[in-house]
């Protein structure tokens, strides 16, 4: 890995979010709380989701979390919350999908800044297979928690 690739990984935006994470700290109210772990390295996140609105047309009213982990996993949690809070769940899920595609693209996917905003800073991560899991930790937790709330409401 060259110094340039290293810089592509550790973009300023990422280091900023790492040093000053948004929406960190667990909050009320929430309908689901999940705890996800990256078994390989031990990074952990506890994440809460609060949805409002009618079944089938929910909105992500709040996402809060507590976590221990590396710069990539911390920054991606921070970016996640920025991107999804306030969005209709459908739209948030589409953003999730788009982030996932970027991360699994091995560096060959062009990120859409309109959709991913600060998230495009993670484009460089996709070239580091070992770090993709770091970037996805909180995103997977969010999807899991959201699915649980929706399922619960439906039943």
């Amino acid at each position, binding site marked *: 890995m060259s110094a340039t690739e290293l810089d592509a990984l550790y973009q300023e935006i990422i280091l900023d979010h790492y040093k000053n994470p948004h929406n960190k700290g667990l909050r009320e109210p929430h309908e689901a709380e999940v705890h996800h772990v990256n*078994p390989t*390295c*031990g990074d952990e996140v506890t994440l809460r989701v609060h949805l409002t609105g009618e079944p089938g047309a929910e909105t992500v009213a709040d996402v809060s979390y507590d976590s221990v982990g590396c710069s990539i996993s911390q920054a991606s949690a921070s970016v996640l919350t920025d991107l999804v809070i306030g969005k209709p769940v459908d739209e948030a899920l589409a953003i999730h999908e788009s982030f996932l595609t970027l991360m699994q693209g091995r560096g060959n996917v062009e990120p859409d800044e309109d959709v991913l905003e600060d998230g495009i800073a993670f484009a460089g991560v996709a070239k580091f297979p*070992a770090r993709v899991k770091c970037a996805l930790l909180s995103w997977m937790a969010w999807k899991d928690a959201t699915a649980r709330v929706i399922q619960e409401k439906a039943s």
Partner: protein
Amino acid sequence: MEGLLPQLEVVRKDFPILERTLAGGMPLVYLDSANTSQKPQCVIDTMVDHLERHNANVARAMHQLGAEASEAFETGRDRVAAFIGAPSRDEVIFTKNASEALNLVANTFAWARGDLAVGEGDEVVITEMEHHSNIVPWQLLTQRTGATLRWFGLTDDGHLDLEGIDDLITERTKIVSLTWVSNMLGTVNPIAAITRKAHEVGAVVVVDASQAAPQLPIDLAAMDEAERPDVIAFTGHKVVGPTGIGVLWGRRTLMEQLPPFLGGGEMIETVTMERSTYAGLPHRFEAGTPPIVEAVGLGAAVEYLSDLGMEAVHAHEQAITAYALEGLATVPGLTVLGPLDATQRGGAISFEVDGVHPHDIAQVLDSRGVAVRAGHHCAKPAHARYGVQSSTRMSSYLYTTPSEIDALVEALEYTRSYFKLG
């Protein structure tokens, strides 16, 4: 001869050991491939390249070598998944051999609770033609849980006796475990029909594919779900791959319900001194450092087979087996154990010769460079069923030529004259 692999002589050049000569300058005639297969150069080279340039531990390592090793290892898994048409690559679990794969299932069933629990009144069904590795694990399971072990008998011509199937596979049956292709009789069993029947009563079906994977095209995803086994097991060293690696493919919903087998590094989610939680498939069943260079080698091996085409490999086996059955029929006093129709069987042919013990046959054959196996081939009950204590077995593979079969037949004639049998 029809059905042989195109360019067989070129294919043989891929296998360095086939150039070997033995004591007395005899060329090697290797007819023991059901025991273990020979390795093509590309498998050996791939392993060497890995060890010389990419060696590192997997999953845990974040550096470049670690990334390369992990990628190579997981590519091995992808290739194996493709080779058997696994519905999901995460359902492919690496074990140390087929025996461990079968034991993994039997051993975890002993600790299963709820729906999968095995206990008194439950039955496990196997067959009389199983390899010891698909008998002993189920003996241990049933002895330890109080369940009952039952089995399909065999017909005189070497097939499963399916007459009593309705009496054998019943509501009490929890597990049916059987071999796809017999390593002794060569018999190919009707896996789809038996699986369908077992699924009707809610039993789990485990298939020992140790002899099937080398010779039959397998496409799990293409099988009707009712007829698809829940688990299949096979072993790397019989599919031109290295020793030290086996494959267990297991239906996700089953494997996720079974309790852990070996505990340790890589199979955990989190560990405290008091308790642990476990990782998802496939890691849940892969405790400790996996067989890394072996998975890399196995990946190259199944690629090699796929490049030849498993249909072509199968056709080759059938052609050679037919030719061998014909040749063996010309040897006075020789009796083949198992089906005599090559289209209905695999490439392992066990036989007896009146008046000479299998050891002595194998020994004289060996003096002519012909390598076969003598003994019970880890199938004592099947031998007992036919009233023999041991047999001689020739087993061909994709690199076997008709002239090697000729050499076998000639060497058998020589054996008879050596022991002065009329």
